[in-house]
């Protein structure tokens, strides 16, 4: 079966591919989910039957071609069935980020004129109901998990099981036949670092051509194992799980719960895996912490073989020549260290691992590659149906996101912004022609909003958001994200926000990593009861100061960035949080918002003060809000030589 990808001219929608798979791969696993501790499997035939029944029910409830249907919840088979059922009826699924608060959700539901909602559980239903009066188009809500729903008697609320038994299965094939490749397959709302979310309209052609390009490039097979654990509202999950599974015929698995993902990963052993850099960072932090707690012999064994791996691992992975001694040592290390470690991480069987979204720390990247894990970087956007650039197996670098993917053209504007053109380019922003015109040129080029450079060997390097790149008063280039990512490569630093545009020098606000620093503090018997207390300890500030000074030194070596050394910094008294609007739902910093909210802190960083009392609002998990007040020390970092010369 390998390589036998079906003709996407003929099977030009996902429901058609589902029907094809149900006939040709009837007993092959399509979807899995762990329920009550046991992995349950739906074959492609089961998948089709479930979709056919649900579609019948939805039709009976009045879902019409072209209507929008929102899908809200964690990755659950039934929510994917709902997506498929909607597509087979010609309705347009609009997956919504499940951890969005009700007001955020309202914008999307209202803007997309959603008529139907399929929600996972009571929590999601409650959010929708609280906004119901603002959603005139909404007619029907279907929920999956009946727990807690007994006392709800709204007539427009239906249990999934009831919907399934409402309709008829006949007529499904005719509905599927009506679909065509140029139809809208899905609308995905981008979380947006600024302003309101925009609904990216993608056609079946967009998604399928891109999915196929990716599948061909990586030679995906029917027996791939994928864990679908990233939000369904995110294009990556849609393409890498749902779309490519339909196209290639492999199975994707839904975790038991968001908290069990590490366990599920280990049990499944995925072969094809995507994770944002943060996940790999956390894995490495955990490994480091656990190795520090291990017995002396194990620790030494680990250190020794990790040096071997660093020397030989990546070369072996890419098929370069490696000396006999190292090759033998690496084999031994594989038995004693790498193999068991990969097994614990759930990465033993990994053939292709992607990371994207943010820059990944070079040492983190190297760590995983040296273990023999084929981790690669790509650069993608919702507007491109994911793939813009992608690294080939034998051409992987930690500082680039790779050359353009097949079928993609790339160019850089004079301002340094990256533009691309590809078959995956989106149709439009839903009901927002102004934004569409701003982003997509008439001849199909898309403005990414990212600043980047193309290296001599064709690899793209992203340095920052184009609009965030600024200049110091003396004209030095200031690329905040580049600096922040570099800072975040220190395991003790969780988040950083830098300032410097139209200022005399660069300053930073820093969040420490509670786990890494907490572990360090426990080892030294430094007491703390909360993040705030830990972050204010002078010992902790000393560590951070050390990191920043070291960071300055490495910047000094790079003439582009020597002028961007951090002169002063504070460690914040609270974690930056999406619930407080400081991060996006995908955990990116909202720069403008933060610089408004933390204006007094920024003033103090550029004033001469040694301390500042800062009061910031917080939103608790239950939605209540309050304030946290902290008395923060402002520290000066050591500036490495060369800066004056550069300035």
């Amino acid at each position, binding site marked *: 079966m390998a390589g036998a990808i079906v003709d996407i001219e003929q099977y030009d929608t996902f429901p058609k591919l589902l029907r094809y798979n149900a006939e040709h791969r009837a007993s092959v696993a399509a979807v899995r989910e762990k329920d*009550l*501790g046991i992995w349950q499997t739906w074959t492609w035939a089961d998948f089709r039957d479930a979709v056919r029944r649900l579609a019948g029910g939805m039709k009976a409830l009045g879902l019409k071609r072209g209507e929008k249907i929102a899908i809200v919840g964690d990755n659950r088979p039934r929510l994917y069935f709902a997506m498929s059922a909607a597509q087979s009826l010609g309705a347009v699924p609009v997956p919504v980020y499940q951890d969005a608060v009700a007001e955020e959700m309202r914008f999307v539901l209202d803007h997309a004129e959603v008529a139907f909602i399929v929600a996972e559980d009571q929590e999601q239903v409650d959010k929708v109901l609280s906004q119901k009066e603002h959603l005139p188009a909404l007619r029907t809500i279907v929920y999956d998990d009946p*727990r*807690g729903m*007994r006392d709800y008697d709204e007539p427009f609320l239906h249990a999934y099981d009831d919907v399934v038994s409402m309709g008829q299965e006949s007529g499904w094939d005719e509905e599927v036949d009506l679909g065509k490749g140029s139809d809208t397959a899905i609308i995905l709302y981008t979380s947006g670092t600024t302003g309101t979310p925009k609904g990216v309209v993608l056609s079946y052609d967009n998604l399928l051509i891109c999915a196929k390009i990716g599948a061909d490039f990586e030679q995906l097979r029917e027996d791939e194992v994928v864990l679908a654990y990233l939000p369904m509202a995110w294009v990556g999950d849609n393409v890498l799980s749902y779309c490519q599974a339909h196209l290639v015929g492999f199975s994707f698995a839904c975790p038991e719960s968001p*908290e069990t993902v590490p*366990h599920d990963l280990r049990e499944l052993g995925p072969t094809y895996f995507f994770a944002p850099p943060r996940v790999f960072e956390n894995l490495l932090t955990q490994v480091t912490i656990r190795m520090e707690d291990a017995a002396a012999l194990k620790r030494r064994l680990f250190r020794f073989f990790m040096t071997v791996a660093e020397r030989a691992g990546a070369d072996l992975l890419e098929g370069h020549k490696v000396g006999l001694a190292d090759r033998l040592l690496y084999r031994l290390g594989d038995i004693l260290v790498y193999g068991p470690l990969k097994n614990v991480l759930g990465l033993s069987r990994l053939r292709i691992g992607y990371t994207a979204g943010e820059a990944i720390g070079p040492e983190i990247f190297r760590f995983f590659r040296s273990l023999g894990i084929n981790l690669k970087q790509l650069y993608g956007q919702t507007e491109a149906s994911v793939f813009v650039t992608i690294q080939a197996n034998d051409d992987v670098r930690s500082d680039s996101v790779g050359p353009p993917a097949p079928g993609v053209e790339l160019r850089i504007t004079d301002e340094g912004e990256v533009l691309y053109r590809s078959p995956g380019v989106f149709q439009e922003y839903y009901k927002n022609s102004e934004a569409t015109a701003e982003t997509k040129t008439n001849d199909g080029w898309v403005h990414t909003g990212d600043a980047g450079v193309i290296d001599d060997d064709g690899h793209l390097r992203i340095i920052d958001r184009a609009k965030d790149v600024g200049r110091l008063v003396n004209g030095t280039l200031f690329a905040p994200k580049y600096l922040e990512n570099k800072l975040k490569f220190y395991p003790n630093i969780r988040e950083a926000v830098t300032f410097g545009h139209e200022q005399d020098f660069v300053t930073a606000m820093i969040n420490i990593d509670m786990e890494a620093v907490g572990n360090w503090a426990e080892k030294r018997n430094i007491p703390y009861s909360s993040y705030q207390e830990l972050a204010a300890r002078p010992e902790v500030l000393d560590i951070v100061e050390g990191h920043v000074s070291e960071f300055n030194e490495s910047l000094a070596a790079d003439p582009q960035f020597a002028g961007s050394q951090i002169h002063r910094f504070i460690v914040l008294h609270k974690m930056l949080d999406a619930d407080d609007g400081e991060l996006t739902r995908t955990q990116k910093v909202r720069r403008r918002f933060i610089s408004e909210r933390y204006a007094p802190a920024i003033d103090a960083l550029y004033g001469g003060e040694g301390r500042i009392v800062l009061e910031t609002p917080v939103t608790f998990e239950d939605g209540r809000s309050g304030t946290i007040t902290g008395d923060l020390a402002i520290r000066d970092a050591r500036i490495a030589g060369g800066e004056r010369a550069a300035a």
Partner: protein
Amino acid sequence: MTRPGNILLGVKDISLRFGGVRALTDVSFDIHEGEIFAIIGPNGAGKSSMLNCINGFYHPQEGTITFRGQQRRRMRPYEAAAQGISRTFQNIALFRGMTTLENVMTGRMLKMQASFVEQALYLGRGKREEVAHREKVEEVIDFLEIQSIRKTPVGRLPYGLQKRVELARALAAEPELLLLDEPMAGMNVEEKEDMCRFVLSTNHELGTTIALIEHDMGVVMDLSDRVVVLDYGKKLAEGTPDEIRGNQEVIDAYLGVSHD
């Protein structure tokens, strides 16, 4: 919202003495089916003694306890458990070296019929029972959302989660009456909110009658259908949270000033 139900457990004129110390004096109240019933009072008021009487650990010198219409004879805690009364403890009483799953599984012990040999060899009845009980245990694990710690030794868990595991073990016994001894003690706000949610859904979804001791008045007033107030082993008041809140005697003696 008081739900009228039959009396599940009736406590009548209970007196308990330890030597010369009178822990409880002539205490009477009824717990109705399907309600959440709170026992409050300052330290040493006799709350835990009362729970210990209900689940058969203490034997009051005077008075009667009626469960499901039957007056109870002197019994041992496991007999009370077999009748459908399970509990959690003020100081967590779990097997620290065992995993969450194993701990919750012990909640099914009383329902196992298979012999030692059958269980040891995993044969016949032993195997069937293990599967059936494991399924029930998994339902409880799902209900309390502790899947991610299924295989973690309990001693390694944070306090709030240990409390949840203890609740899971009590629920695994499928009790009719669940006794919770300070379920929120020592928890932070978030842990308390989680616990409240689980106590409420146990009551709503599983229909379990709950009697709880709690010091956090906010929790008590929000959760309970009815409240009884003890002081120095005597009943001071009984009623709905609103009635208790408005009871001047209670306010003066225990709450200091009104909680709100």
